[in-house]
């Protein structure tokens, strides 16, 4: 969504055209969810927070300065909500959440920069690239995504744990280049 499209939509929302805001949600939903997932880890939490981001944005749309980057503005709202999320009583007592909160604090600037390049166009590219992985590499990657232990993956693929590591590194290279080619078109 370029700035002229966004401005047109932003003009319509104050006139009561709330479905215009839906277009904004559709355009930015993926990148906001990705950003939040990199901060809070669990998708349920990320999706709950993403909804709050857009509700907040809708209510405070009049405060957005049009010369600024809208995605960055949304991520600013997201960061505030994440800080409040980590400060809820239950989360402060869990070591893993304290760890993730501290990591988010340290890497916030870099995560924000990385999120600014998460585009809807990469979804289809990622889908195509994963489907083109050689079969054994795809199975190793799938196992890793689902949290399967490396020893179990090695057993399933009738290979060694060391070979599974090597397969992941090979998959890394193939996917990196594939994505770069897909997104450069």
């Amino acid at each position: 969504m370029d700035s002229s499209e966004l401005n047109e939509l932003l003009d319509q929302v104050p006139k009561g055209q709330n479905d215009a805001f839906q277009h904004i949600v559709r355009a930015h939903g993926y990148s906001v969810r990705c950003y939040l997932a990199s901060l809070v880890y669990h998708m349920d939490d990320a999706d709950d927070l993403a909804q709050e981001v857009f509700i907040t944005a809708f209510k405070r749309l009049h405060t957005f300065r049009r010369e600024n980057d809208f995605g960055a503005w949304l991520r600013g709202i997201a960061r505030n909500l994440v800080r409040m999320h980590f400060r809820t009583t239950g989360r402060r007592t869990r070591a893993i959440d304290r760890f993730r909160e501290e990591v988010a604090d340290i890497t916030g600037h870099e995560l924000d920069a990385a999120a600014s390049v998460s585009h809807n166009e990469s979804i289809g590219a990622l889908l195509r690239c994963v489907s083109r992985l050689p079969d054994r590499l795809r199975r190793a990657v799938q196992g890793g995504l689902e949290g399967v232990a490396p020893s179990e993956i090695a057993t399933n693929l009738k290979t060694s744990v060391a070979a599974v590591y090597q397969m992941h590194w090979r998959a890394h290279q193939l996917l990196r280049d594939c994505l770069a080619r897909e997104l450069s078109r």
Partner: protein
Amino acid sequence: MNTDLNDLIAAWHGFELDEARLTELMARLREDHELRAAFVAEVSMYSRIKVVRSASPRWLKLAEELGVADGPPAGEIDDESFAETVMERLRRTEAPGRPASNRFRAARNVLLAAAALAFLTFMVSKLHQPPSPPAGVEETAPASVLAVLTGSRDVKWESSPAWIGEKGIGQPLTAGSIRAASGSFSLSLVNGVTLSAEAPVHLEVISADNVRCLLGKVRVHVPPGAEGFTVDTPNCAVVDRGTDFAVNVNADHETNVMVFEGMADVLVGDPANRPLFGTSLAGQQAVKIGPEAGSKRVVAAKAVDFTSPVPPEAVPLDLSPEYAKAVLASGPWGYWRFEGEGNHHANEIQGGPAITGHGNVFQREAATANRSMVFAGNLREPSHLKMDGVWPRTMKPSYAVELWFEAENFGNSTLLSLLGTDIPMPHNRHAGLIELRANNREPGGMRFLHRWPAGTDLGVNISSARVYLPCRWTHLVAQCDGERLQVFLDGALVSETSLPLDFSSGPVHVMLGRLYPPGFQDKPENLRLFRGGVDEFALYDRPLSPEEIRAHYEAR
């Protein structure tokens, strides 16, 4: 991946580390910019993957705030989310012993960290590529060539900038537009995909794995190794997962998709091509995508509404009589010209063994009366040629194979199998192979293998990409001089590699056109049948000099 990054990622995924180690890692993360960048790259990309594989959220609270209805536009039938599509794609591979549940478990090991790194797009490395041709040798099918016209029926062409040169069978195409007002035609893409189209048609060839259909009917076959091939239409993208499928686009931009075999994903986008949702189709399933954004309807499959494949056209080989003289002057051990009648083809070298045709293999005659062999086999009736007896060969690997070939499509197929004689046939122990390759990594490629002793793995390979075009006769010499393997095409060296010092050779069975001999118990789809023409097959007990090879080619 260094230990600190490894542990950071593991901890981020929930693996428990002791307090002292966590403190140390936090300090490093603050101080080390490179570590921070690597960590962020992995975490952000892993999160992108996680979002894609998750179900689309239903934000009822937001919908209520906006005062709009939640859910997809009216007229939709329930379908899979993107995330389910992605994970279904991953799950399609067999994984015995893997838990049936798709419940995501918190990762506690280095492997998950390595898996997350798989999706980094910010590290620098290159894909392994097949060796480039030696300096001074041009690629037959340079990177600009994406496809070749292999079949044509009464086609009335319109302006088509994708053509390289004249339009005709065997002519290559580059990225660009192809339009026809009437008729039908077939293309063979360098990665092995075959595409047939029925006019009126307007295609845009984007790359070897992406074609845009703006109007017309197309039918696509995607072989293994080329999965992910995509046909874009004005309102959706059909992404192959290893299948035969067809797409019709009419003048109103309504798209019909049918999968005949295998699977395909249909990704529907809005007019700005932002993805809305996806659905998966299996064999004999069809879907209609309306011109309005997000309109999709499952329809009854009617194969007759979609176009049929257009078969490739055969190309005869015209050769001057001087060619045979040049070959004989080089003293081959065996030379078969396939000029006689019947299925038993005599050796031009007196006393040498004949070659026998099996299955759907027959002769074709050119205008100059030269006859060549046509391999027209399929999985039900494979075809091959087999030499009677054994090619003895010397212990020192020093030999050459020479022939002319014409492939009807880019594809994975076996031109020549050399099989060991140490155990009775049939078996799968190769001492040599010449194969044509076509997939996303080896478009229009060739592989020459030398292996001794005969077996099922190891050996020395040379591979070349983009070295041949279908529907064109190509002169091939593959040879070994004891120190190097070499492949010459059309008289020029295209690839070579060194042999280890201790490599040897020995007697072999000789077979043309299939990987394994009849009777060997393997899956039919592993036969890698060659389809096309072969002629002027010669075997030598010594390598040919580059001058001889050039002279043979020029004597054609």
